[in-house]
């Protein structure tokens, strides 16, 4: 681990699957191949740039006091965009709070994310229509929920029917820190025991706030899968093409009824844990510099430029669209309606309990007393 690249070397038992080198060269792998064409690579590029632009705008909004907090995904765009493009409409994802590439990739308006971190909203979108759950904030809880959702899919006859338009699977996203949580481990036990159609997708970004991966695990995370009785694979998380290939295979396996897979996407959190964090207190600049050379967007751009699969107009258009999105988000974020405490009373139960009815009435009477006093 002395080189800071932790098993990403050219060869060895823990070498990650890679299909696009950091300098943008396509390479072959004996078990995995990228099934997409250059048009798909261009989409990956555009989506990664867009989500990074949203991230930058959100950080700026937080610094200006417009958001309470923002967890940056900087550096993890390749893992997320590669994974989300492997999903089909009928699949379902359980993301955590750093998975902006997953939510936006599934069609969630980034404004919904800003609303959550601005505090105008509990963090809500149409989970059923978009096939993506709400951000899990308690670390690891989604490991079990994803497994249960998969058990539900199986009971609905939506696993292993042989119809690719119908069969579905679940993506469970979590980080290296979550691998120490009981719920992720229990999720792996349940998924393995019930052969649930779940892909456990761990983004090992090397840091859980200030704690390095060595505090969570002394063995490569993907190797844990064997102990649970399911396949584990390590993929270069900054290589969107490899992530797409590995995730596609795992999802196909799950949908066809062959059970869960554990993917360790080996990546790096380039930013702070959140806008409240100060990583200069616990990590060194040289580590960042090494990972900057492995940037997920740069390598796709290098590939597109060197092969002529995209021209200057394409890159300019992607930048322009991203900037337009950022302008729109800033404007709409500032115009988000303020929530009222009263409306939250409606969300607790199917119908308000007698206690809630009484408390709300008293609160409104109290609030009204100030109006009358004017």
């Amino acid at each position: 681990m002395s080189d800071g690249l932790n098993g990403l070397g050219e060869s060895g038992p823990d070498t990650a699957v890679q299909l696009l080198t950091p300098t943008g060269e396509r390479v072959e792998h004996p078990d995995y191949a990228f099934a997409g064409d250059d048009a798909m690579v261009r989409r990956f590029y555009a989506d990664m740039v867009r989500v990074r632009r949203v991230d930058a705008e959100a950080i700026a909004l937080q610094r200006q006091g417009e958001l309470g907090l923002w967890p940056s995904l900087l550096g993890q765009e390749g893992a997320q965009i590669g994974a989300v493009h492997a999903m089909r409409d009928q699949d379902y994802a359980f993301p955590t709070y750093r998975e902006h590439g997953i939510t936006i990739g599934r069609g969630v308006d980034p404004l919904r994310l800003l609303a959550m971190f601005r505090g105008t909203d509990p963090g809500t979108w149409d989970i059923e229509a978009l096939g993506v759950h709400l951000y899990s904030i308690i670390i690891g809880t989604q490991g079990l929920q994803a497994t249960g959702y998969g058990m539900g899919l199986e009971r609905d006859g939506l696993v292993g029917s042989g119809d690719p338009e119908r069969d579905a699977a679940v993506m469970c996203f979590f980080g290296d820190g979550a691998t120490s949580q009981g719920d992720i481990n229990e999720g792996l036990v349940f998924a393995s025991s019930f052969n649930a159609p779940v892909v456990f997708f761990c983004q090992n970004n090397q840091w859980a706030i200030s704690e390095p991966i060595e505090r969570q695990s002394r063995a490569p995370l993907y190797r844990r899968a064997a102990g649970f009785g399911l396949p584990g694979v390590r993929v270069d998380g900054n290589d969107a093409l490899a992530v797409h290939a590995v995730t596609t295979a795992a999802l196909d396996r799950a949908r066809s009824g062959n059970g869960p897979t554990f993917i360790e996407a080996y990546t790096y959190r380039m930013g702070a844990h959140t806008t409240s964090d100060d990583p200069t207190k616990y990590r060194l600049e040289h580590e960042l510099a090494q990972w900057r050379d492995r940037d997920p967007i740069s390598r796709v751009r290098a590939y597109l430029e060197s092969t002529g699969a995209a021209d200057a107009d394409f890159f300019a258009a992607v930048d322009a669209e991203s900037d337009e999105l950022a302008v729109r988000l800033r404007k709409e974020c500032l115009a988000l309606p303020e929530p009222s405490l009263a409306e939250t009373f409606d969300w607790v139960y199917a119908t308000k309990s007698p206690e809630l009815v009484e408390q709300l009435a008293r609160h409104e009477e109290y609030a009204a007393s100030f109006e009358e006093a004017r």
Partner: protein
Amino acid sequence: MSTTSVRPSSRPGARGRDEGTPAPVRTMTMAKALNAGLRKAMEDDPKVLLAGEDIGKLGGVFRVTEGLQKDFGESRVIDTPLAESGIVGTAVGMALRGYRPVCEIQFDGFVFPAFDQIVTQVARMRWRTKGAVPMPVVIRIPFGGGIGAVEHHSESPEAYFAHTVGLKVVTCSNPADAYWMIQQAIASDDPVIFFEPKRRYYEKAEVDTTAEPLDLHSSRVVRPGRDGTLVAYGPMVKTCVEAASVAADEGRELEVIDLRTLSPLDLGPVFESVRRTGHAVVVHEAPVSVGLGAEVAARITEECFYSLEAPVLRVAGMDVPYPPSRAEEDYLPDLDRVLDAVDRSLAY
């Protein structure tokens, strides 16, 4: 929330009987009544699933699910790995797919590994989705002491759950309520923590499977009286009824109210009673401090202040861990401790 409200007959848990089913009025234990209620709920709705440890072939350590896996299959009666958070966490996922999971926690003291999923996930999903996504999960927990068990098998953790917004908490005290309330809990679109008084599992009473059941979230006057009010739930209802019976021999008529629902509380009948009697004693097994009794006492004080002839008293477990079983008779409220509190109240 009145004691006279009934469920519409078209919904699960209400009147309705197929040809060839057993006699409508049967004498059965609470365990059997729960079994019959679970069976009826599973027959009425194919989305109802059971999940827990040893609930399949064994039928659960208390045999509440006996025979259900044989009749409904392993896909609907799931023997889970030995992990309570796993039982509840996977139930959340299945509920998101439209299922109505009924989780069995083997013993009260084993629920805490699942506490996070219950408090941060089950209780919050509807709120988090601004009311859009219901969480129709029932979590059955055998609770309370009196069975000579080892540590962590005699706990009364109901206050933790009643304190958690987003959950509903109920407990049955007799076989008939057990039969109906489990079906009503399963039909609820809100999550229900369902406490079963394990020391009453094998006590028998008549269950009328064609009766119109009381609303799930209603308390009930189980014995009328004019001299004082005893408020109890779960295993302590029987204790209080026995105490009232002895008091009657001494010329005191005590009213006994079975709360049945701990969240939301239905204290209308309690207030009505206390306004007549002027004396209230709340009884539960759980440790006295910051328990349900404190909440009930506070609300009685708020609503019945000018009717009270004495402070509301509590008879409860003490603020020590549940004792070794040879000492549990001293810990658990019993007939004499209840009557002692009545004496103190009436002497005010």
